């Protein structure tokens, strides 16, 4: 049985559905941090949600969470990676939707909103994993514009937004934007070497 990061759960208990949370992770602890974010949201608060993944394929994320012991079947995945892999969309999971490419930023947002409208849950979140993966495909200025739109749209619709990034690999301008527009910060970005 793994130990989730209780500090993250504590921080999340203080946010509202109009909050936008910057989630900083390190290169070696991202899986644990993500699991620690999802666990209180799904199991603790019973929220509905969408996980937008541009870093790994959705089946990969699902299996990783299952290994950790977290059941993510109640949430929906928007997978921007699998369509770029031949045969990538062949998988047994029913809770995955696809966007052809990480450059189709508006589609990610719209599909998330579409799913949440039809999910029936009262409180919802959207987690964007990750800004770094998106920056491979999108120029800094469009990414900055997108995050601004993304955060404001979610706030307007009372959807909790969580934006994952590895800070020392995020373009400075984008990082600065997130610092400006996000209401909360969960910082596990620096790996502590004992």
């Amino acid at each position, binding site marked *: 049985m793994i130990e989730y990061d209780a500090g993250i759960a504590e921080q999340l208990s203080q946010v509202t559905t109009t909050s936008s949370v910057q989630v900083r992770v390190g290169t070696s602890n991202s899986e644990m941090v993500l699991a620690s974010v999802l666990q209180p949201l799904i199991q603790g608060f019973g929220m509905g949600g969408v996980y937008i993944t541009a870093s790994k394929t959705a089946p990969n994320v699902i299996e990783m969470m299952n290994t950790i012991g977290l059941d993510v079947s109640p949430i929906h995945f928007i997978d921007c990676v699998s369509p770029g892999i031949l045969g990538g969309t062949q998988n047994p999971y029913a809770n995955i939707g696809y966007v052809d490419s990480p450059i*189709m930023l508006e589609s990610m*947002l*719209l599909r998330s909103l579409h799913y949440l409208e039809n999910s029936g849950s009262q409180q919802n979140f959207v987690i964007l994993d990750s800004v770094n993966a998106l920056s491979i495909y999108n120029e800094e*200025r469009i990414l900055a*514009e997108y995050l601004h739109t993304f955060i404001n749209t979610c706030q307007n619709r009372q959807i909790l937004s969580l934006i994952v990034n590895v800070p020392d690999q995020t373009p400075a301008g984008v990082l600065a934007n997130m610092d400006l527009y996000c209401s909360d910060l969960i910082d596990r970005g620096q790996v502590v070497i004992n």
Partner: protein
Amino acid sequence: MLGAPSYERDRCVTGIRGLDEILRGGIPYGSAILVSGTCGSGKTTLGMEFLMNGARSGEACAHFSATEPSVKLLENVRQFSFFDMSAVDQGLINVFDMDVLFSWLGLDKSTFNLDDIDAMVKAITDIVNTIGVTRLVIDSVTSLCYKVPNEQLIRDFLFKLGKSLSTLGCTTLLIAEITSVGGTAHRSAFGVEEAIADGIIVLGDVERMGHLLRYLQVVKMRGTDHSRAKYALELTRSGVMLTPMLKWGVSD
């Protein structure tokens, strides 16, 4: 001195997420709006969603299909969760095949003269008037105009049609097909449709790094203020969804 009271036109609320906001509440009642788009841009889906939302509030709606058989149209639109076939069964949405209408009127020929055009306008108007249609889609007006031999007659046709429908209080979407030329879409096939219509909504594709993204843009709408920005359009199972297109994401 007191200012004149502001006048707000009654609106036909489309029910399409994002579009009513763009139009500041909906389409002014009785307007004939050109919905002009390239192939696959979502014109037909938008038209059907417009009608379905009207049917849900008890309005009588009609769809004249000139580009695809109604059997195929209904089969394709059933995949969308916004669409309820019972609206067709109950006569709230009346779907007509133009070729059947032409056959009944003795208009199965390749070119129309003025009498034929008058007959067509009269037939559509009769149908709208008799069943009290308040929402109408003609898909597509381009294929009807191909049967009209010159620009002047096309103008006459659209003017008469628009005027008749407006008099009856029917809000109409005239679907038009356009081709994209050199990256810039024309707004109508014959150039005259856009001058006659009360509003123009353009649907097209924008290319971003080799991918095509659908967009919608309201170019003109008489009688109301509206946004003129480009909006990314997504065709989801529950219909059309719109969000502002990222400004830096449009390559000209």
